[in-house]
């Protein structure tokens, strides 16, 4: 019992640490480090102003200025992503509760960031380039897609809950003693030592990853949309597209850091769990599924709360 409690405490602690990281990230909640909030805000403003100059430089002096624009866009992406957007919450919750492979965690961060950039490209290219819509209408599409993205986030959370819930339920049914109290020693659980080690090697499903990328990524970066529209007017649409891809790369760099942190926190918990005595290993699996279930619940609640907020929010007076 002590070990189970310890394990759960460890898991709760890692979740708390991660949530603390969100809370401390500059640009958003950021109360912990007000000076950092200012640095990020000032840097972002300066980079944004410089971006406009850089796009015009590409128009006026050709490809030579392109490299500068790419570098600026990358930095803008890094700083712009340094706030706790909902995408980062979804990604890290998912990783913390489902993924033990660092490579795939970082892959998820990159895929989501690039899909965001590509969605911005697609919207501007189709709405403005092909259909000739007014800019205001083209940007309005972003708001509509945003609601869809939030709904998908909720759906993803629900699916994760169902999957984990089913595993929990089947384990509860197959081990009849599980609900009769946890006080007796469990020597006959049928789980072998090293279950946590298996979890360290195991990856989450491709379907789950794809769902995360879709739910997070189809919400385009509205900053990216504005840059694309600007480049379109300046007559250098290709440069705009390259700039948005560089922004995605910058965003991916920031989000990857968070992803690595999430995967690392999970791996640490699993390693600690692996050191538990053999007869507790069964509980580890149950605890992991419980964490996965809770993670799904979080994502579901986030989706619902975002959809509600988006539907209630009035249109911005200046957009």
């Amino acid at each position, binding site marked *: 019992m002590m070990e189970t*409690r310890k394990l*759960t*405490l460890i*898991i*709760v602690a890692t*979740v708390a640490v991660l*949530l603390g990281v*969100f*809370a401390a990230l500059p*640009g*958003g*909640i*950021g*109360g*912990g480090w*007000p000076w950092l*909030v*200012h640095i990020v*805000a000032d840097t*972002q*403003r300066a980079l*944004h*102003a410089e*971006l*406009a100059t850089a796009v*015009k430089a590409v128009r006026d002096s050709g490809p030579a200025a392109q490299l500068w624009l790419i570098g600026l866009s990358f930095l803008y992406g890094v700083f*712009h992503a340094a*706030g*706790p*957007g*909902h995408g980062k*919450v979804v990604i890290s*919750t998912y990783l913390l509760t489902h993924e033990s492979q660092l490579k795939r965690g970082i892959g998820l961060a990159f895929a989501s960031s690039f899909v965001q950039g590509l969605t911005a490209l697609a919207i501007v290219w189709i709405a403005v380039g092909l259909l000739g819509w*007014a*800019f*205001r209408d083209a940007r309005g599409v972003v708001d509509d897609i945003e609601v869809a993205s939030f709904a998908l986030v909720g759906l993803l959370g629900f699916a994760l809950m169902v999957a984990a819930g089913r595993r929990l339920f089947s384990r509860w049914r197959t081990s009849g003693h599980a609900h009769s109290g946890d006080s007796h020693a469990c020597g006959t659980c049928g789980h072998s030592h090293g279950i946590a080690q298996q979890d360290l090697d195991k990856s989450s499903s491709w379907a789950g990853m794809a769902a995360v990328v879709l739910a997070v990524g189809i919400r385009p970066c*509205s*900053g990216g949309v*504005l*840059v694309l*529209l*600007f480049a379109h*007017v300046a007559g250098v649409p290709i440069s705009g597209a390259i700039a948005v891809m560089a922004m995605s790369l910058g965003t991916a760099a920031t989000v990857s850091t968070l992803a690595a942190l999430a995967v690392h926190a999970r791996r640490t918990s699993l390693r600690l769990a692996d050191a538990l005595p053999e007869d507790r290993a069964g509980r580890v699996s149950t605890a992991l599924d*419980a*964490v996965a279930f*809770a*993670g799904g*619940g*979080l994502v579901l*609640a*986030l989706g619902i*709360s975002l959809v*509600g*907020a*988006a539907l*209630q*929010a009035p249109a*911005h*007076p*200046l957009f």
Partner: protein
Amino acid sequence: MRRLSAVLVLGLMMVLMVPKAMAHPHAWVDVKSTVVFDDSGNVIALDLDWLFDAFYTVFVLEDITAAGDPPQQALLDLAAQNLKNLHEYNYFLEVLTHGARWDTGAVDTYETNLVGDRLRMAFRVPLAAPLNAKTDAVSFKIYDPTYYIEMVHVEENPVAFDGAPLGACSAVVVEPSPDEEAVTFAAMLDQSQTGPNDLGRLFAQTVQVRCQ
């Protein structure tokens, strides 16, 4: 099960904080303000001068610019529409006396033009009733409550005076320093609530006006 609920409760707290916290600026406005006095030395209005960033400018102008520069009438129509939309937001302006909110009225004079590739919009917001600059501890904040647009005073000559007693008045732009508690409280607010502690306000500069 109790531990599971602990995780869930912790997570739910986080989730409730997110919608507000995810807002971050996508457009920037450089602000200059002028404190306007009447003949007897009372503050009667604020003149606000907004310079939008180049991206926003292109965004709003493209639709009214067929070729070349937009006609002045189109710019004026745009400003009129923007000011109409901004009315229920008090033009992103909050006037305070001794820290308490002071009512402001509707804009009826404004001007607009292009400065290079940036849209400028300047307008006068009258106070509902005059304030005594010497005794009323007048200050004001300019911010987009949603924090979608970041409004920052320019570095050089951010605040001017119109009709102030000569040499008697000064203004200080105080940078925001949101403390953790206030920010967390703001983050917990529902998105639709624009209380006195919404996100934009926490990151807003405060201009303090002092007259002798």
